[in-house]
């Protein structure tokens, strides 16, 4: 793989063959940090080194991991660790590669988190579609148990740890931490009212740390080699390395592990081989459908939390979907709205009703019957949703509208100008959606 990292920190399967096997992983420093922690470190010390490393959450929000762990109250037991492997953001496929090809590193990171906060049980919550990669993860867990790396009285101490894998049922919202907890508890996947935050009252109303798979995969190296080692990469505020899932109109869609703050969007595009169609790239979605779209003029921005902020976007879950000049942003926005309408959990009014309404308006656009008044209506409905939702999903849904309208209003105008005839391709799209919808309906009726 063409990547500037001569030795990966996370995607080590690209350097070491068969690292998914326990023996290979162990031969490459695997579980050394784990043994070190359990036999020679206190929980607070583990938290300390992770804090010093500046590691930030890779699930989207970028919250400092060590700080999060330090919020866990000492005197309430049991505590839990839940690992977020719901990975449902369109265009994200990094956690998938980690659990499939480097599962032990995920398990070791999880174990270290448990030890740090004094938890004895961890749940790895995987999206339902991960049935197959989860087999690798489960095998790795089984092997770790057999090797005495998980289970009772580890390394002869009185510390014990159990790790379970749980498959979700396929809902984007179950990636949101409190909805994930509800789902894990067997309830309908809807976010909880906060406060209380999971650190105080999470799974089964007990103190709970929730971290993304990639976040935790960084931890073994940090514990083994120290925070300074980790800070050799990245910037002051964005230390370390990060996986970029690249897809769309690029020649080499893949996961790319890069030090933060070193490369620009343009560099990333080039690493991925540039445009796959020969047409210039028009824009990129940096964090799937949840992020403000970035037009090509801003591709100079560096890949770190701070720089993305300066161009009005986010690093988020780092799912980079490049789109070439052939992509009509009205079509793209509709795709995203359709996604959010489908994934809205329904708990709160603006998201439930607003995404439904917005999709109706985009459908009207695609049918070729819309006028500029409908474009204004999209703007209005968008504004009507924003700032009022119960959880970020509803707010995410607005960015596809806000930023396509902001950067590509001309696409909307052209779309209207083309009228009915110009939208044949999109009519096909509509028909396909309706067909899918009918199939879904039939399946439901039969079930």
């Amino acid at each position: 793989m063409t990547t500037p990292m001569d030795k990966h920190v996370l995607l080590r399967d690209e350097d070491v063959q068969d690292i998914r096997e326990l023996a290979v992983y162990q031969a490459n420093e695997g579980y050394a940090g784990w043994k070190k922690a359990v036999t020679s470190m206190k929980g607070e010390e583990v938290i300390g080194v992770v804090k010093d490393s500046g590691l930030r959450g890779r699930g989207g929000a970028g919250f400092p991991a060590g700080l999060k762990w330090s919020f866990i109250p000492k005197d309430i037991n049991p505590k839990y660790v839940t690992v977020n492997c719901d990975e449902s953001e369109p265009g994200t496929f990094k956690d998938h590669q980690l659990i499939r090809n480097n599962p032990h590193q995920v398990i070791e990171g999880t174990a270290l988190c448990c030890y740090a906060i004094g938890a004895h049980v961890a749940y790895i919550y995987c999206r339902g579609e991960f049935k197959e990669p989860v087999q690798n993860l489960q095998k790795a867990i089984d092997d770790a148990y057999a090797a005495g790396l998980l289970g009772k009285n580890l390394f002869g101490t009185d510390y014990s740890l159990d790790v379970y894998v749980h498959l979700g049922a396929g809902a984007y919202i179950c990636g949101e931490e409190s909805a994930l907890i509800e789902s894990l508890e067997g309830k309908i996947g809807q976010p909880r009212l906060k406060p209380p935050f999971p650190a105080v009252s999470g799974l089964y109303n007990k103190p709970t740390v929730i971290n993304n798979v990639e976040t935790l995969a960084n931890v073994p190296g940090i514990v083994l080699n120290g925070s300074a080692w980790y800070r050799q990469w990245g910037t002051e505020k964005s230390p370390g390395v990060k996986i970029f899932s690249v897809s769309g109109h690029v020649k080499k869609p893949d996961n790319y592990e890069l030090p933060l703050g070193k490369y620009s969007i343009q560099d990333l595009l080039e690493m991925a081989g540039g445009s796959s169609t020969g047409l210039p790239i028009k824009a990129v979605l940096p964090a799937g459908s949840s992020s403000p779209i970035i037009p090509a003029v801003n591709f100079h921005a560096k890949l770190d939390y701070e720089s993305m902020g300066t161009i009005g976007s986010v690093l988020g879950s780092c799912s980079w979907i490049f789109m070439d000049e052939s992509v009509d942003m009205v079509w793209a926005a509709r795709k995203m709205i359709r996604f959010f309408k489908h994934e809205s959990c329904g708990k709160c009014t603006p998201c439930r009703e607003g995404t439904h309404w917005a999709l109706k308006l985009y459908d009207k656009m695609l049918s070729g019957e819309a006028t500029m008044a409908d474009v204004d209506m999209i703007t209005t409905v968008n504004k009507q949703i924003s700032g009022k939702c119960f959880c970020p999903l509803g707010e995410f849904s607005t960015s596809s509208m806000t930023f396509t309208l902001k950067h590509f209003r001309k696409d909307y105008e052209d779309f209207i100008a083309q009228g009915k005839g110009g939208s044949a391709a999109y009519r096909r799209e509509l028909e396909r959606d309706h067909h899918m919808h009918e199939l879904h309906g039939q399946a439901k009726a039969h079930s």
Partner: protein
Amino acid sequence: MADLVNVTIDGVAVAVPKGTLVVDAAKKLGNDIPVFCYHPKLKPVGMCRMCLVDVGTPKVDPATKQVVKDDAGNVVIAWMPKLTTGCTTPVSEGMAVRTATQQVKDAREDVLEFLLTSHPLDCPVCDKGGECPLQNLTLAHGPGQSRFDYEAKQHNDKHVPLGDLIFLDRERCIQCARCIRFQDDIADDHVLQFFERGRHMEIMTLSEPGFDSYFSGNTTDICPVGALTSADFRFKARPWELDAAQSVCNHCPVGCNTTLNTRLETKTGGREIKRVMPRQNEQVNEIWLCDKGRFVHHYTRADDKLTQPMVRRDGKLVEATWDQAFGVIAERVRAAESVAGVIGDRIANEDAFAVARAVRSTGKGSVSMSPAISAAYADIVRACGVGAATDLKQIGKGDVILVVNADVEEQAPVWFLRLRQAAVDRGAKLVVAHHRSTKMHRYAAQIMRYEIGGIDAWVADSAKLLPDLTAARNVLIAFGDEKLDAPAARSLAQHLANLLIDSGHAGKANSGLLAMYPHGNTQGVFDVTAPMPAVAEAGVVWAVGVGDRADLPQASFLVVQDVVMTELASQADVVLPASSFAERDGSYTSGDRRVQRFYRALPAAGQARPDWWIAQEVARKLGAEWRYEGAGQIFADIVTQIPGYASLSYEALAKGEEQWPPMGRGDLYYGGTVYDNEGGLGVRYVAEAEVGTVVRYEVGAPIAALSGLERPERMLYQDGELIRRSHVMASHVVKPAVA
């Protein structure tokens, strides 16, 4: 008094207890922040987003940690970047709230427009129309017109039976989860849930049979739209056509406050009860009713409702005039050696008093109660029942609730709700002693199981509870008479009273006995009639409001006075038609000794008359001179003659006071069709132990329980003369395993 917190809302200052939510604080000022999902009886969820307001807190300088003031010396407020839901935000010291800014107004309009995009707006045929929060709030805060394309509306099923009592209209549902939350948090029957997600999210029932709960009707009250309707009322009338009379449920010892909604029917020309609604009484039922209390009312217009006196001629009951009926009775009474009055425990205090007076004024009469077991221990409850100032809301941490030989949910459903909350939400220690599992067992900190017939073993063992009871702040003892005969039930009550006396809790507020009496006025009938055990036989037996034969003396002549043609009435020599509770005024005394008035809702059906009137006319036919003009006059006699009632008056019973939060229908703010309490909150009379000295009981008969099934357990929907006549309840009626 709880710590007070100072906040300003639209510039107006108010001090409210710590923990108060912004919406409730605003309500104190008469500022109605619109809400849909929030309900003061349920935990806030913040789902509907209707209550968005602008919230700020005093700005603090991070360096000095001091509150920042402007040049004029006013505290600078740091406003939150986004609007906040007032229903989930507790007030904090110095908080400022803005509810009238353009941004807030826009937010309300926006959320309402969203809600209406998927609402069918079929108000003209909707049962909630006229008392609907969605209608009201749309008028107050909504857009005049929707910009949503009507064709794009999503249509859903409109007549979904969740169970046979409650129907769901999926189009009208605004997904506020009040119904689910009521079932989960208050009733603890997890039978409703959301299914699917997003715009497809809908209410479904998880239970088989559907919506299996004794409390399902309450969801139709608190549903803020017409999505949930009852099989009993749906499409039967419009709210504005209904007259409302304040009443009291008489089907169990709780004495829930109700409102009888009636309408003049063009078809029959008569007035009918269209629905029974809760009436707010925070001391009794708060705003809840059980489904029996709500749906059992149909007997008041049963086909076999008695409307004419009847006498037996040639072996057949034939209609007669009152005078003829009284004549026959007077003749038989004169000829008889003895007269036995048997009084059922659902009739009003005034009726029971007058019947007892009439029986005794024959000079050869004796008065007993049916069922007899109720009379076996009511004097002990009168002595050691809960203290007069008892408030179930105050039972919580540090208190012990002991439940003995009772199934509270089956026998006093709304007490079940309240005791459960005391244990689950407020941390009272619940100890349950029973020979079988009941729903109460779910919340028990301590379960004391004994075998069927083995309650004496528990009694012997119960002394070990004394240290805990003595240490407790308050001790409530809820008990029942399952599988006991009258002497044993009495002994059990004596023993439990002794536990209260020994632990120092007799005669104290928030402590005492709570009896699971069979009906709504057991205590009252006992109090005002001073009954004796039934005699074995009598020349004339006069049964008033008696459901079954079991406790009747052998009779050579049987007079039955009742509301419908009961099995017993069909065997009588004379049948006297009594008015139902809905046709007259009166009062009941609940199981916790609260005396409450109820008021006339319907005109007299045919010749039917109140029991007291019938009793007095029989007495007069026999030469008595007394005469009452109405229930109030009888109550005045009760006050002077019945110990314990001396401090009461009809006026005092009818007094109300402000109830917080106000949830009556006159103030639709919180959304819900519970009625205001205009009929009075009632008065609990003082327990004897509160005023006199308490002496331990010499426990009489051994507390040997009947083994096996001699006395079936008392279930809420147990077959009976009244529930049998409610067609909506028909499929729920359970026949006892052994008669």
